[in-house]
């Protein structure tokens, strides 16, 4: 494995060696390495590019890594990954995606992920995106995530985009049955002319289903971010969306949280706040001896941590 691939795997998937458990590493649109276990099957699709990941019921404390790396320009990668997570599972799924593009041509990865989460199953899903490379070639990442949650299942999704991605169009749709819990934590940093779009649509169809969306955005220079969320409550349910943004320079963040209560027992809340770094926070850290730049860096890294 070359150094660039190693670095991308380390930074996006925290992989410093070949991981324990099941994995499927995709490089420049091709399979690089795969491992399956007794409980976790990974099967290439025959009708389209992508894989089916089948996790047997009752699988506990196991992980699946499905990193994607792109190390060249001019690639438009489209992949469909379907996860079937059996009842009573408790698993970690890590899907980092890194593009190192030193060319003048853009490279794009479109990952379409579908999760079918069985009854009582518990899934933590981490999706970290990174772009590297200094030339004009853009690094674009467009993830689409569809989540179907059976009764009493739980899904925690961490989405992290900490720089270098020129364009991202992130779409997440979820349907929750009774007692299902969905937690989404999104962190996005954009700089220069970068653009990041986020769309969440969550339908709460079962009683006592619950969703918590927390989005933290930092937009610097001339970058642009748009956050759209739509939470639809069709049962006795709870939904909470919190979107916080820090902007500087000429950056723009648009936030449109929408909630739709279609059941008298639906309880939906949204909060959104966007602004520059608080002067009080800056001054407090400067009274501790930090310079203005250091204070700013601390506040932003804490905010995105």
């Amino acid at each position, binding site marked *: 494995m070359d150094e660039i691939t190693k670095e991308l795997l380390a930074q996006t998937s925290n992989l410093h060696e070949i991981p324990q458990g099941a994995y499927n590493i995709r490089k420049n649109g091709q399979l690089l390495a795969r491992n399956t276990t007794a409980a976790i099957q990974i099967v290439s699709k025959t009708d389209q590019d992508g894989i089916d990941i089948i996790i047997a019921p009752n699988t506990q404390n196991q992980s699946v890594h499905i990193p994607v790396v792109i190390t060249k320009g001019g690639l438009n990668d489209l992949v469909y990954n379907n996860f079937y997570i059996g009842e009573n599972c408790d698993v970690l799924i890590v899907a980092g995606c890194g593009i190192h593009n030193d060319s003048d041509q853009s490279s794009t990865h479109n990952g379409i992920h579908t999760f079918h989460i069985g009854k009582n199953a518990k899934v933590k899903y981490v999706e970290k995106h990174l772009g590297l490379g200094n030339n004009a070639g853009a690094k674009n990442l467009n993830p689409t995530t569809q989540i179907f949650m059976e009764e009493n299942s739980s899904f925690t999704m961490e989405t992290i985009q900490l720089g270098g991605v020129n364009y991202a169009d992130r779409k997440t749709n979820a349907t929750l049955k009774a007692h299902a819990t969905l937690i989404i934590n999104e962190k996005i940093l954009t700089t220069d002319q970068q653009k990041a779009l986020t769309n969440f649509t969550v339908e709460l169809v079962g009683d006592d289903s619950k969703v918590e969306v927390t989005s*933290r955005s930092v937009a610097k220079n001339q970058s642009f971010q748009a956050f759209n969320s739509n939470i639809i409550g069709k049962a006795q349910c709870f939904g909470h969306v919190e979107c*916080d943004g820090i902007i500087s320079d000429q950056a723009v963040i648009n936030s449109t949280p929408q909630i739709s209560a279609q059941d008298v027992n639906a309880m939906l809340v949204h909060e959104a706040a966007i602004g520059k770094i*608080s002067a*009080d*926070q800056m*001054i*407090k*850290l*400067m*009274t*501790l*001896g*930090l*310079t*203005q730049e250091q204070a700013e860096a*601390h*506040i932003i890294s*804490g*905010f*995105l*941590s």
Partner: protein
Amino acid sequence: MLELQNISYSVRENGVEKNILKNISLIINDHQNVVITGQNGSGKSTLAKIIMGIIQPTSGKIIFNGEDITHLSVTERARKGIAFGFQQPVTFKGLKVRDLLEIILPQNTNCHECCTYLAKVGLCAKDYLERPLDNKLSGGELKRIEIATVLARQAKLNIFDEPEAGIDLWSFDNLVDIFQQQQATNIIISHQHKIIAIADTVVLLNSAKIDKVGTPDEVIKFINTTKQCAKLGGTH
């Protein structure tokens, strides 16, 4: 030694000049506990912020250990050994109590030392180090953490703006002990008799000016007489 020379601060409000501080001159010697007291709105917090560099005075000079610091930034003053505890502690999204202490304490400081400063203000480090510094903490908890961050800096000059606010009685007595034990110079803004009582010098501010400087007894006596005068229709 801290020397304030003719400090004035005014703002324009609706086209009218408003004096918030007028000709404040004061010398504070090392290792002294100086309490600044006075009614709400008399200018105490403004004076504290001017010493820290958070507000620039309209005129006047600040000399700290022989150096004119009037035009130094907050950061530079902090690095010269001035620490500041806010009247209203600042909250953060994403920073924990531990993060603030790690900014203050040297890189290789162990957890034990963080614990010392939290323990001083009556907080159990185990319960607080990983707590986010946000509004889920009560006003009293935030205030104690604020004081711990000042103590942790081990500065030459500490400024505390109403440190007792929101602190229960038991911890309040500990707070008084802390001020008495400090090797540093302390400027404490307070209305509390117990804090005034431990001062070497008390400064009474009244409507932007210093009304009286003296020992606790002298200043309390002065306050009582002027109250008396006011009742009798005096001009104070």
